[in-house]
């Protein structure tokens, strides 16, 4: 076989095609990418989450864009909705933030991520900007805490929050001889109610409590931390800036789990440890009257009002009660809050302008619309007292009242690793493979392994 013209021609063709393609690709997009993402003087890029069931932020952004562009001629707002669910959304944001060319100016940021992202240098501090913003006075103190970074600077403005409390099914309570206006004051009250339900209706699950590893952070937040923060102990000592080991409150919270599962007051194990149990409780078990008490979040009624599985009767059938503290000690009840914020990216060319956009997006009117349609608990005093807000969803009033006693997670960069050990503990107690003391010791050991001995402190 000869090295003939065929070879040479093929070779030339391939090389030419490749170079042409490369040139074309580079040429076409290089002009745009520079001005696009990092936002020139006249462009603000806004990144946020959007899914089939969560379009409210998109609506808010569209409105804000129109308003802002109208008020600031020459400025373009470029919306970049990221259609992904939670974990992927965070990943995509992290990727975008990692490159200066693609880092957005305004970010829809989970309070959970703020400390981490601030430490990574992705966010710009906004203390100066909020000082000059009139609306800032309306924000509740706890909400102002939500956007703080490790260095004490403010990085995000809260877009609303969520709280957690006890849902109970009034019919089941009535059948068990329990008051339909239930006001438990201690953990024992809750357990007593569960026992009463078990006696009167053996087929009904007395209490649905997030327990499994498969439910991840939901177990930590809606389950365990709702108990722990009612004991007076905490996960993280904010004054010393160290993680807590050897906490009696930790053991007590696990003992609660132990009681629930050993007395069979909870969901059957295969259901309790199932990854999809949260949705099932909300859309099937509660509406069907198969669960008596559920410790869950403020967003449940939103599903019952509109969405794929509406349940109009909820207003008559469901009652609300705050989760009491362990012995009823001050402040009497406890709750946990998460929530999201709008933050300014550190690569923004004009941070003031980016903040101004946030201010427009979160002005009173837009905030009201967002809180109501997205089932968010108000973080602004003016809206929290607004009848329009309160009437939109009858459960708002109750869950808003919990904001006074709520706690936020210590969302340090390693929080997610540490928090992942909490469901390990609750699950091992629920399955009976460890006693509360053993599980707590295992958690302590894991904690030391993650942060190192010097970052921990013994509980008082």
């Amino acid at each position, binding site marked *: 076989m000869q090295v003939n013209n065929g070879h040479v021609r093929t070779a030339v063709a391939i090389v030419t095609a490749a170079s042409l393609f490369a040139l074309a690709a580079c040429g076409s997009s290089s002009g745009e990418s520079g001005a696009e993402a990092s936002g020139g003087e006249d462009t603000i890029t806004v990144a946020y989450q959007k899914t089939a069931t969560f379009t409210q932020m998109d609506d808010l952004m569209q409105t804000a864009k129109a308003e802002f562009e109208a008020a600031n001629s020459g400025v373009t707002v470029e919306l970049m909705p990221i259609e992904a669910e939670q974990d992927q959304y965070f*990943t995509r944001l992290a990727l975008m933030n990692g490159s200066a060319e693609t880092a957005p100016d305004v970010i829809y940021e989970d309070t959970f991520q703020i400390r981490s992202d601030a430490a990574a240098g992705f966010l710009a501090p906004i203390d100066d900007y909020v000082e000059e913003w009139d609306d800032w006075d309306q924000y509740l103190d706890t909400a102002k805490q939500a956007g703080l970074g490790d260095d004490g600077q403010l990085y995000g403005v809260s877009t609303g929050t969520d709280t957690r409390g006890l849902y109970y099914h009034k019919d089941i309570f009535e059948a068990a001889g329990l008051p339909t206006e239930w006001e438990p004051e201690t953990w024992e009250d809750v357990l007593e109610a569960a026992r009463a339900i078990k006696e009167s209706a053996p087929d009904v699950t007395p209490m649905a409590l997030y327990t499994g590893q498969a439910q991840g952070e939901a177990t930590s937040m809606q389950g365990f931390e709702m108990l722990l923060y009612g004991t007076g102990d905490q996960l993280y000592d904010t004054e010393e800036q160290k993680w807590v080991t050897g906490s009696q409150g930790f053991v007590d919270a696990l003992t609660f789990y132990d009681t629930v599962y050993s007395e069979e007051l909870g969901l059957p194990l295969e259901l309790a440890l199932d990854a999809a149990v949260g949705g099932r409780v909300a859309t099937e078990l509660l509406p069907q009257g198969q669960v008596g008490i559920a410790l869950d979040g403020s967003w449940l009624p939103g599903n019952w009002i509109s969405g794929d599985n509406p349940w109009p009767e909820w207003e008559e059938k469901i009652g609300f009660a705050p989760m009491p503290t362990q012995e009823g000690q001050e402040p009497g009840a406890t709750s946990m809050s998460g929530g999201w914020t709008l933050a300014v990216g550190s690569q923004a060319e004009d941070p003031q302008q980016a903040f101004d956009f946030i201010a427009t997006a979160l002005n009173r009117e837009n905030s009201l619309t967002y809180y109501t349609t997205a089932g968010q608990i108000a973080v602004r005093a003016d809206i929290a007292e607004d009848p329009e807000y309160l009437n939109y969803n009858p459960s708002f009033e109750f869950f808003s009242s919990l904001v006074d006693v709520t706690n936020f997670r210590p969302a340090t960069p390693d929080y997610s690793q540490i928090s992942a050990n909490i469901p390990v503990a609750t699950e091992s107690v629920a399955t009976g493979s460890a006693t509360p003391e053993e599980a707590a010791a295992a958690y302590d050991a894991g904690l030391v392994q993650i942060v190192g001995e010097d970052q921990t402190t013994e509980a008082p």
Partner: protein
Amino acid sequence: MASLTEPQVDRRRRGPTPRPRPGAARTLGRLLPLAPAVALLVVFLVGPILYSLYGSLTNRSMSGPGAADPQFIGLDNYTQLFSDGEFWTSVWLTVLFVGASAVIGQNGMGMALALLLRAASSPVRALVGTVVVGAWVLPEIVAAFAAYAFFSGDGTLNIVLGWFGLDGPAWLFTFPMLAVILANVWRGTAFSMMVYAAALNEVPPEITEAAELDGAQGWQQFAYITLPMIRRAVSTNLMLITLQTLGVFTLIWVMTGGGPGVQTSTLPVLAYQEAFKFMQVGYGTAIATMTLLVGALFSVLYIKVLKPEVD
């Protein structure tokens, strides 16, 4: 699909014409068709792979201090990995998962289906082929939910068992590994089926006819004649499905979330937790590298046992 090397072809290919060793120019010319493939591989994959492997020697993370200022920590990620009991459990689970669902399950079922397809009537062939392939082309997330709904405590499987008066357990809770293995067999068998159907087609019927006339029974034909002839296809198939199965993540994640506890936390599940939930990309890459090693070990095993002529 993958071919057998018939003795006649082999001799012919090894070159009846001993040509003079080609000069440099000719070799270069012969290698030229490789250029597009190599170019793509080099541009898009070599750099990122090397960078990632290097990344496994750092404490790089997607957020937090590890993102602003990743430190080189040498083999710390690996030593931490090896001293973690969970890692070894994960390796064992992965080996079990691959062995049971790919080597035995998909491979065996694929072969059985390929044989049955040849022997069955035409309409049944068409229908069943499409159904089996259907399970394969379903988007993984949907297949995962379907499998979840099937194995769940009050899911389809238990409903069907109920018709026969049997009371099935909560599969995902009591036998989680079994459930994910079966689900993966259900999902991936189509590939092996197609490979073996093509391979079986290439076995010359004269040889099997000759064996039959000599008195060999069906299974003897298969074991002693057919199987050795498609040895190469078997080896290639095993290698490919092993590598594919090593990467299975969504199926397990949706069905059991890696649980209960860590009973189904295979290496991809572990890597996902590290890289995504905890944003520890360096550590996650270390796990991925280990996964690759497991795959390499499997492949060495196949080659040693099956001794196909991979030239």
